[in-house]
């Protein structure tokens, strides 16, 4: 038996059953897969180029979203998928860890510490997720830009290519989005 295939399946099962560690192991793999796919997609010329998800991404996605197939008609759709997926993975991970912490397993590492988002403040993934939902309601494009920049890790240039808007616009939207999100998070 190929050890890894069963290993991945096993991890996915454990994750579905609520084991945070399992996702912790899977995550680097998923992220890497997604990043690679994103990189390939950015490198691919023009529209009409459809990208197949890797087996791993596919399987994880099916578990997460419960959809039958993963398929994209254009680049924007693809990146929306990747961004959404990465966000889901991260949020799910955070949620499980929080639940686990409430369960009181003292040996685990300080979870809030691990899930603090980058930056000087003390913002956590779940708060960001909630705030982003608010932003999506009033400015979906701006929320997408945040997802692409932050969860997928695209550069300003790459976001401008994916969304078909100027770099200046991306920069301005990114900056004001962060202000909005911070106010939303700290204000609530």
């Amino acid at each position, binding site marked *: 038996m*190929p*050890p*890894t*295939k069963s*290993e*991945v399946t096993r991890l996915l099962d454990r994750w579905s059953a609520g084991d945070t560690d399992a996702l*912790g*192991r899977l*995550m*680097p*793999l998923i*992220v*890497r*897969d997604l990043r690679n796919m994103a990189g390939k997609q950015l490198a691919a010329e023009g529209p009409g180029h459809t990208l197949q998800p890797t087996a791993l991404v596919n399987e994880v996605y099916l578990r997460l979203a419960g959809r039958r197939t993963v398929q994209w008609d254009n680049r924007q759709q693809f990146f929306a998928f990747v961004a959404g997926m990465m966000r889901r993975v*991260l949020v799910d*991970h*955070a949620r499980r860890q929080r639940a686990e912490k409430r369960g009181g397993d003292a040996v685990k*590492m300080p979870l809030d510490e*691990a*899930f*603090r*988002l*980058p*930056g*000087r*403040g003390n*913002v956590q*993934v779940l708060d*960001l997720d909630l705030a982003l939902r608010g932003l999506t309601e*009033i*400015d979906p494009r701006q929320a997408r830009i*945040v997802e692409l*920049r*932050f*969860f997928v*890790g695209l550069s300003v240039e790459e976001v401008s290519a994916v969304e078909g808007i100027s770099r200046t616009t991306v920069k*301005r*939207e990114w*900056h*004001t989005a*962060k*202000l*909005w*999100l*911070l*106010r939303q998070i*700290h*204000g609530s």
Partner: protein
Amino acid sequence: MNPDRWRGVKEILGILTSGPPEERPSVADACGGDPTLIRDVEELLAYGHEAETFLEGNPWESASGEAPKGDDGAGVAPRADGPNDTLPPGHRVGAYRIERLLDRGGMGVVYLARRADDFDQRVALKLVDFHLHTGDILDRFYRERQILADLEHPNIARLLDGGSTDQALPFFAMEFVEGQPIDRYCDDHGLSIEERLGLFRQVCEAVHFAHQSLVVHRDIKPSNILVTDEGVPKLLDFGIAKILAPDPSLPSGTTMPGRRPMTPGYASPEQLLDEPITTASDVYALGVLLYRLMSGEAPYRLQGASFLKMVELICHGEPPRPSTVVRRFPAVEDGPRRWRKLAGDIDGIVLKAMGKEPRQRYASALQLSEDVDRHLKGLPIAAREGTWWYVAGKFARRHTLALAMLGVIVGFAVAATVLWRQAVEERGRAELERSRAEAARSQAVDERAEADRSRLRAERVSSFLEELFEAADPDADGAAAVSAREILDRGRLKISQDLADQPEVRAELSGTLGTVYNNLGLYAEARELKEEGLRWRKEADGTDRPELAIDLNNLARLLYDLGDYSASEQRLHEALAIWRRLGDDGETATTLRNLAAVAIDRGRHAEALELHREALELSRGLYGPDHPKVAESLYNLGVLHFTSGSLDPAERLLRQALDIHVRARGPEHTRVVSALGSLGRVLHARGRLDEAGDYLSRALAQRRRLLGDGHPHVARAEASLAALRLDEGDTDAAGELLRRALATLRRVYGSDNWRLADAESVWGEYLNAVGRVDEGERYLFSSYRDLTRIKGPNDVYTRSALNRLVHALEGAGRSAEAEELQAAHRSAEEQGKGD
């Protein structure tokens, strides 16, 4: 906040944060005095400071591991100045205390160490001695480490920790494994083939596990695979090579080959050429490992080889099949018969794993492991389709450009360096001369002048080089990428424009460029340049120089490949004359043999005989009568006599060759087997069937043992023996042999090959003998036609085919037809001789 309002706020924020601060309006002004708007904007702006870093980072790193921590600098043990100094026991590195030195390798030093804190854990501590910025390495380490730490597999030594030492050298802490490198383990424990394969499969599966986590080892070799006393293989250093490699995001076209940490003996073609590395590169290294474990030897002899030589061997070379080196292998305990079967499969598996192109290899390490398993279970393996030459040829074709360019760059660089060195040395010598003796003054002046000329030459070569590649740089003039062809054409133009007064440099560069054109398949240009180079060579060096003869020989080879035999012969004769004048018997003999080869191709057997005879005499004079080189000539002569129908001398010469080869190389050498086979065919032609049968079956048995079933040489031996069995009346044996031979020959050569045609002619005779007359006749006719076309009417194989056809026609009572055919053949022969 509703969408419209947010849009308005964003606009105001834009005004308030762009442009020079002194020109920005106040918040109140920007908001037009609207108090709720002012509050919103001011609240948002208050987060400006936090926003600078907010979300500016990788969420995945903080999610999956603690923040990188630096060296804690603890410990008062004596400092070592660098990694080459051995750290004393007790010295502290990070959280570890050194116990003793374990190994000193290409990338650094490995110590046995123990954690200095509460965890009592023994680790292998690797201190990196690699001239790269520690920061880069550590950055990569932190990027990779979660993935590497998660590689939890019983056959992979885990990466535990990493950091930097007091001297800011990176270190890695790994699970400590006590064991022997896998190759030594197998040999020391006298493992059987099956046991070795079992161990190898475990290694494959561990590698596959890592591949599934997207970790490529990049440096698989025996010293990175330790086997414990319990017989468990453990892979070390997984992922380390990537951390130590130069950043792949840097433009790779500029990196010098060889900068990546790798072990040439196990490096794949793409690794050597600095092309992208994938899991397929590990599959290749596993192939080399299997080669080593099965045959006891490395596929290529790379010791002391230059980089260019390595490229040639690894990217173009065909290593001997493991089964041919395997005779020296000590662990063949199951008898030759069993080993033979094993060898054929293993050859195929190793060959496939070591494909020159990544896509020709097994798609995964797991597939490789599964094929080994199929072999162990006696099932047909997936790997038996490819052949060495097919794979090598394909790679060469696809990479000609890269290789050709690499060749020319290295060639130029070498030429420039040599010339520069010469200039420096000559100049130094000249200075010395001058100061030593006033009397030698005039001579010293001469030498200085010569040294200056050399220096000038070196400068010309290197500036030529620079300009050429400057022109090829797509950024230089903003034009689209320049093709290799264009670079070469420019180079050619520059040679004629800029180097008109430098015959020697010009000769050198014309010859080199000619080779590159040739490598790219641009033969006409290659020919022109080589001929041009030759003219300049003559002008620069005069006519009696070894360099000129070598150039002539190279050109002759090119002309021969182009099919211009008469021009090729002419150049060879020129070279021959030079070697004769220089009195170099060895080179003269080689050139004679080349001439003989051309003569044979043109159907001039008598002349070829003369040439071989002289080569034989020269070889005897040089090496004595019993030297293998002499036997080589004897063999060539014998075969030549045989193909032109002189059976007496053929038998005599082949027997002499056989004797020498047996004495010099033992009874099992391939040369001995070739001689046995040829002698067998001669004896068959002479009608001495018993004797012939003896030789031919010995030849077949040895071929099978050395090469395994399914090899074209085995098929040839089968066909020869089959022809004899037919004449003996043993049609069953003949049919059996022929079926196998034809299957192999068709698989290897496709159609349109003289060896296949020869075997098909015998097959036609067999069909005739068992009563399938119509079918047999078709084979007899078509093989005769093919042989006439491919080998010409004068050839012994063509004549044999004719004889079989004539015999069959006569047997069917169609003598008139047979007569006609023979007459036609005779006139074709006459025509052929006149050519």
